[in-house]
Each structure stands twice: as C-alpha cells, then as structure tokens.
C-alpha cells in the first residue's frame, strides 16, 4: 500500500492506483468529464488536474499514479483557476440551451417546455403535476397571466409563439374536472407559519411550505381567499368558480385558511410572530394610485381596482352612459370591458402613448375593441371637471411621441396648446395601485413606500418575518411574479426554520445566441387560440370569454413547441461541473465549432453542436463494443464526432446498444424516449433485469410518474442482443 495525503487527509491506496481512483475511494471528489472505468484513460478534459507538492506541473489525476509520501491538493487556487478556465472555454464552444427560454423568462421558472411537451403527448396528469411544482393556481393563472414565457418563445421567430398560458389552463381544467391532484406532504415538522394575505403570493407560499411539512395558516381580510385574482380580475376573464376550486385544493392539501381578519385590527405582525415560528407578509397593494390631476376627488371618479372590486362584490356603482378609463394596462382593460358589460354606451380608454406602447396584453386590447371600446391614444387628462361635486367632463392634453428615452421607448410630449374635452358620466383611473402603508406600520419601508424585503431571502427588519409580492420592494406587478417570489420565499423560510443555509446563487445555464439560430427548415404552423364568445354576446354578460382549448386543439398547439431546452438537462454532467466554478464563458465568446444539427435513428439522437469531444462515445463504441460506428473526424477546433462519410447513424453498423448515450456527459447524444414528442423530464433511472435467452441481463430503466420512458441496455448481454427498445420494454413488463 502507498501512503499519501490528499487535502490534508492521510490515506492509503494500492500501488499502481491513479490519484483519481485513490481520491474516489476516499470520497474526495475530483471532477472529470472524459474519464470512465469502461474505457481506457484519455486525458482530454483536463478537469481532473491536481497539484502535487514538489511537482511543478499540474497532474492529470486520471493518469498520474500515486506514489509514497505524495502530498496532493485537489482544490488549490491554481487547480481551481485551471478548471474554471477549462469550463469557460468548454462552455464557450458548447452550443445549446440547457433550459428553454420560455422557462427562463417565467418569473416563477415554470417548466413550460416540460408541460407543453407532456400535453402534446396527452400526458395531462404529468403536465399538471409539473405545473404545480411551481404554480398552485394554474387554472387561474393560465387564464390571467400576461405570459412572459410566450414573449421569449422561440417559435415567434418561425411565426408566432406557442400559446403556453392557455395550454396551462387546459391542463389545469382537465385536472379540476377529474381526480384533482393533491401533492404528497412531507413529514410534519411541527413548525408553524402564519401568512398574512391570501392572494397568489400568500397562497403559493402556504402551499409549498405545507408540502415541506410545516403547519401553515393564511389570514385574509376579505370574505374569501384569492386576493387580487378574486377582487381585481373580472369574472369574464377568471370565473370565481375556477378560483374557488383551486383554493379548495390548497385547503384540502392541509393549509388552514382564515378569512375576515385584518392586520392591525384583529392581530399585529408581532402578535402572530409570538404564536408562530415564522410570518410571511403578503398583503398586496390595495390602494389605487392617484394621477395628481385636479378634480380626482369629484364624485363619479373611481379608482380602477376599487371599481372592479365593487362590481365583483355586487355593488357596482352607477357609471352612466359615457365612461372614460385612464390608463393602458391590464387593469384599464378589465375596467373598460367591465364598464361595457355594465351597459355603458360610450367607453373610452385614454392613453398618452399609442397602441404599440400599451402595456396591456394584445389580445385584451383587441377583444376590448371588438366589444366596442374606443381608444383615445396620445391624450392625457389634465383636469376632471364637475358640477355640484360630480364629474361631467374631462379635459385632455393632446400628446405626440418625442425622442426615445433611456429604455428606448418614445416618451409622449404635450402638443402645445392643443386640448380636447369629452363629456363624461364617470371616470375610472386605472394607472396603478400601491400598498396601504398603515397596515404594515411594524415593518420598515423603502423609499418607494413599499416593504423593504431582501431580494434573495425575503427577510424584513423583524427576525422571522418575511415579505413578498405587490407590497414589497418595487411594488405591484403581475401575479406570476408574486408566485415566483412566494416559491423562493417558501424555500428561504424552510431553510430558516431548519436553521440551514440557503444557496441563492443563480445556477449557470448555457444559452444559445438566438440571433444565430436558423429556422428556415421549420414548417409554418399557425398559433391556435381557444374559441371565444362572439363580441356581441359577451359584451352583455360576465360569462367567461374564452371557451378554452379542446383536447385536440391543445395537443396540436403543444406539438408546435420547438423543444429548445436540452433533454439531458437533469443528468448533464457538464452542467453539474459548471456550477462548481464561478464561470463566465462570455469573456471567451467566439465562433461555435459545429453547426446545430440533428442526426437521429429510431433510438439515438446526435447533436454535435453540444459535443465537448470527451471521446467517450467513440472510445466506448470501439473499445467496449468493437462496433466503430462513429469516429473522430477532422482535427483541432473543428473536430467532430461522426460516422464515416458523414452518413446518418441509420446507415452505419450501430447496434443501438446505447452505451455511448449513457456515457455522454452532456446532451450531444440522447436516447429517445417512448413519448411521441420528446420532453426534458427529471426521470428516475434504476437498474433492472430482463431475461434474454434464459439469461439475466441488466438494463437501465427510466421512469417518469410511473411511465417507462426508456430502457437502455446496461451490460454486455443486453447490449449484444440488439433487441429493439419495444422488445426490451415488453420483456420488462
């Protein structure tokens, strides 16, 4: 036996062992991407380098043998720097999206590609479960979300983005119609968490903390839970019955809901704090913002959310025939369309920029117009005029678009001396909402007048009190933003309750240069949207406008997904190592070595743009299988893995043994799953045995929610039998 020291730990290793082997046997991790016991040592990746005392060069631990008295450091500054640069170089030439842009752009990081793909396969239950990993209210959110995911969807570069939000609503509706999914709850921890506010933020935090085993109670001042989803969004967009069902499921999963209790009246943050281990403040922003325009206090001038809430509560004010809504956001749309439904004859939306700059969802803008709403662009109210304390007209300043500002938007400037006056019966100011500060007097506020909460840990000035959602930091935003915060906050609170540190580092993700992607080979397939009620029908009632996707429509729409995210994301070794070093590959940005292409046969898909040239596939095909279906072609930066003469795999002697796929440390080689449309999923791989010719053969079985997705040969016998995957699956069952 050889005695040596690694990272200060004295160990022994058999003579002839490599440093890597010795380290492994002693649970000392050394990264490597090109080493595997199945094949001969190769030494390409250079990640396994270590520093040995007295040896000037870094040693590749996969090949350097242990020697008596050796003193090794596997994590010295020099070693870390070498690995860091190696990873940066590698990633600078690795052309692939780990995660689809839709998911990255979703504030809650919902796995859009995952559930869209599952829907395409008709796996609605799995799709719903995947959604509920991030969103506990998907039927509601699917209906109301302004879907940042779709803005990032690459399909827009072909024709139009995937209708992701509606697909979410579809999957959630399917679930509500049948055996609704309830999450598994972890062992109860005995810790108590109180959440103030039952809107999307509060409910989401409650849902996930409950799953983690904590006892959660949500306190809300209104009659019912749902917050702005219930009291700020009209029935025709989000039927309350849908919301009720989803909240009922949250309650059923174990969250305690208490309504009609108000912070500052029935309890204080500190009083809750005394009886709970943690408190989350998610009170939202319930006060309409002022425009600071003369006449705002006249009778007949309403705040946007106040107006919507009154209508929802059945106390609709008398708005008359002529109504003006000020603002261009989704609340303005909700207000104008509600006004139409209340019977107003002339409904105007006054907005100081043009249609193109309106922040509201395009579909909403169009649908409102269909329902008879009149837009007055490039106008800005300068006074509300009244008689006897009641508003009678509104004076508008005519605007024009000036120079683009810092954000690139052309800001409106008044046209000197040009005004316009409209006679009105009522005015609705839908220009934003803010926190009711008095409610949270115990907490420190920031200079915007919102609760100051740590962006990563969501902590406030009081220990054990966390804050999220519209009430915090930058103020009111969209529901999915609050849900994302709530999900992360739940993890932060869980870590706090368990006294554990929380890793808030943003993981490194490889992203393709969108400008460089060629879509010319994609077939044009137009975006599908659910059918809607005809305008002249819907503008007279509060029935839901959208009829939702049919199953057929949903599958067809989901099938349009370009599958941007990498299928190997969940088991990518490359990505795993990338997280270990604080890498910034952008500094080495340059040409990509290979074109992004696909070569596939029935089982294996190759994409050399993602290849890191570890050589494991070529070496295992040669050394282990003696098949030689693929080889290294060319040299240097442009070295490529390919069959001879660039033939497709189909035309080689590849036996589909799958060994190359299982050794590939990244997504260059993928084994196709039994799903029609391929989806990146966090599958479980287990070793199982099948009988082949009376002998036991080992296979790797991948399952997702119980469904067998792949069976990959795992020993000499199973690899040499050349059975099709169908035959292997059959043998398994």
């Amino acid at each position, binding site marked *: 036996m050889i005695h040596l020291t690694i990272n200060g730990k004295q160990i022994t290793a058999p003579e002839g062992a490599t440093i890597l082997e010795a380290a492994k046997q002693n649970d000392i991790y050394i990264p490597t991407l090109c080493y595997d016991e199945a094949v001969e040592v190769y030494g390409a990746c250079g990640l396994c380098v270590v520093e040995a005392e007295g040896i000037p060069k870094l040693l590749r631990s996969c090949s350097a043998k242990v020697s008596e008295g050796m003193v090794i450091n596997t994590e010295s500054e020099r070693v870390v720097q070498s690995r860091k640069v190696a990873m940066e170089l590698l990633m600078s030439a690795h052309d692939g999206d780990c995660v689809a842009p839709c998911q990255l752009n979703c504030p809650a990081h919902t796995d859009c590609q995952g559930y869209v793909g599952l829907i395409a396969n008709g796996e609605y239950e799995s799709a719903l479960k995947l959604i509920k990993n991030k969103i506990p209210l998907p039927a509601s959110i699917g209906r109301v979300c302004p879907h940042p995911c779709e803005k990032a969807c690459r399909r827009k570069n072909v024709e139009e983005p995937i209708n992701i939000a509606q697909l979410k609503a579809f999957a959630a509706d399917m679930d509500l119609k049948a055996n609704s999914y309830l999450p598994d709850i972890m062992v109860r921890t005995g810790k108590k968490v109180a959440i103030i506010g039952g809107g999307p933020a509060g409910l989401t935090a409650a849902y996930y903390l409950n799953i983690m085993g904590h006892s959660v109670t949500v306190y809300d001042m209104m009659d019912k839970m749902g917050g702005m989803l219930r009291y700020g969004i009209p029935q025709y967009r989000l039927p309350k019955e849908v919301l009720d069902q989803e909240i009922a499921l949250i309650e059923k999963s174990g969250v305690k809901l208490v309504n009609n209790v108000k912070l500052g009246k029935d309890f204080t943050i500190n009083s809750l704090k005394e009886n709970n281990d943690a408190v989350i403040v998610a009170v939202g922003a319930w006060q309409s913002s002022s425009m600071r325009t003369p006449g705002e206090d006249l009778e007949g001038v309403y705040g946007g959310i106040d107006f919507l809430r009154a209508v929802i509560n059945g106390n609709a004010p008398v708005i008359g025939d002529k109504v003006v809504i000020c603002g261009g956001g989704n609340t303005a749309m909700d207000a104008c369309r509600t006004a139409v439904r209340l019977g107003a004859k002339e409904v105007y939306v006054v907005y100081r920029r043009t249609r193109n700059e309106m922040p509201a969802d395009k579909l909403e803008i169009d649908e409102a117009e269909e329902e008879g709403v009149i837009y007055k662009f490039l106008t800005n109210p300068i006074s509300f005029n009244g008689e006897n304390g009641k508003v009678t007209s509104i004076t508008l300043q005519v605007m024009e678009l000036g120079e683009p500002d810092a954000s690139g938007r052309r800001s409106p400037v008044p046209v000197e001396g040009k005004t316009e006056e409209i006679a009105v019966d009522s005015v609705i100011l839908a220009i934003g909402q803010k926190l009711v500060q008095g409610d949270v007097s115990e907490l420190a506020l920031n200079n915007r007048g919102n609760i100051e909460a740590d962006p990563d840990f969501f902590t406030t000035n009081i220990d054990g009190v966390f804050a999220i959602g519209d009430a915090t930091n930058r103020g009111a935003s969209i529901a999915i933003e609050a849900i994302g915060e709530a999900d992360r906050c739940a993890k932060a609170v869980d870590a706090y309750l368990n006294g554990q540190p929380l890793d808030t580092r943003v993981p490194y993700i490889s992203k393709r240069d969108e400008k460089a992607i060629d879509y010319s080979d994609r077939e044009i397939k137009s975006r599908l949207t659910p059918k809607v009620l005809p305008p002249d029908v819907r503008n007279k009632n509060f029935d839901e406008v959208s009829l939702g996707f049919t199953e057929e429509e949903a599958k067809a729409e989901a099938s349009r997904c370009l599958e941007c995210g990498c299928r190997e994301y969940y088991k990518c070794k490359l990505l795993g190592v990338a997280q270990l070093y604080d890498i910034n590959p952008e500094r080495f940005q340059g040409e990509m070595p290979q074109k992004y292409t696909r070569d596939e046969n029935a089982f294996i898909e190759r994409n050399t743009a993602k290849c890191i040239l570890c050589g494991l596939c070529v070496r295992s095909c040669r050394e282990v299988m003696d098949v030689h279906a693929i080889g290294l072609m*060319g040299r240097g930066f442009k070295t490529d893995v390919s069959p001879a*003469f660039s033939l497709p795999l189909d035309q080689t002697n590849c036996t589909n043994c799958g060994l190359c796929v299982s050794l590939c440390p990244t997504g260059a080689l993928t084994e196709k799953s039994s799903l029609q449309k391929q989806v990146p999923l966090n599958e479980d791989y287990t070793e199982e045995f099948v009988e082949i010719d009376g002998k036991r053969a080992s296979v790797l079985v991948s399952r997702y929610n119980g469904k067998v997705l792949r069976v990959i040969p795992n020993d000499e016998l199973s690899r040499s039998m050349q059975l099709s995957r169908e035959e292997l699956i059959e043998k398994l069952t």
Partner: protein
Amino acid sequence: MENTINLSLLDGVLSEYAEVKGSLITILQHTQEIYGYLPKEAIELISEKTGIATSEIMGVGTFYTQFRFEPVGKYLIMLCQGTACHVNSSELILQTIRDELGIDDGQTTEDGLFSLKCVACLGCCSLSPVMMVNEDTYGSLTPDKTKKILKELREAAQ
C-alpha cells in the same frame, strides 16, 4: 467521375501492406498517389481488406492535411504559410492567386486545371515566399512572377 474508379489499381498496395499493422497512413498515401485523392470506394475496399473500420480510416484521413477527398486539378498549387514566407508577404501571393484563378484555399478552378492549398512550411525559407506546383518549387515570388507562372502553366496545359 466516381464510377470510373478502378479499384484493381489498389491490389499491389493492399497485398503489400494490408496485413502489416500500423500501415494505414502508408496505404492512404499510396492510394492518393494513384487516384489523386481518396475515393470513397477505395476507403471501403481498404476497410474490407485491413479490417479497419471506415470510421477509423476517415478519422485518420481527415486528421492529416495531406489527404484529400475530392479530385484535385491538374496543377495542385501548395502555397507555403511558413513564418519566413509570412514575413516576406506571402499574403500578397495568396491574394494574387485568388484574383487570377478565382479560387480560395481548398478549391479547384471550374476547368479542373488548378487547385489551391495553403500548406505548412515547405522548408524553403530562404526563397520565401514559396509555392510548390505539383513537384516543382517556385521561390522568391512576387505578384507579377506568380501571374507569369500561372499563365505559363495554363499555356502548357493547352
């Protein structure tokens, strides 16, 4: 062009080297001498006779700059890219050849007369800039001299 490959020309090479281990590069060199490049059919035959997989043969063939997989022109111009040639403005010679023949590195003129290949140092540094056309070396090139050489070669071919 492809269907005129006479594989029997390889008989001699294969009978001499097919059984000798480590001879792949030598076999490929002889094959290229025969055909001017490495035809796919020849590679398949070599694979059959030596037992070396086509993926390996292509791996070796594409690794070394000597090997070609397309027929080359009557005149293969190998322009030296060595340091001395660089310092003595070989870039101007490359530009001249490009202008005169309308081809870039690795390409062949449409009439099949000239192929251009930029190669590593030819070792005639004292005569830099240098090019080889088939077996002949031309040194101390200037743009005008290069034009003259190309013109003479073209005339000789007619």
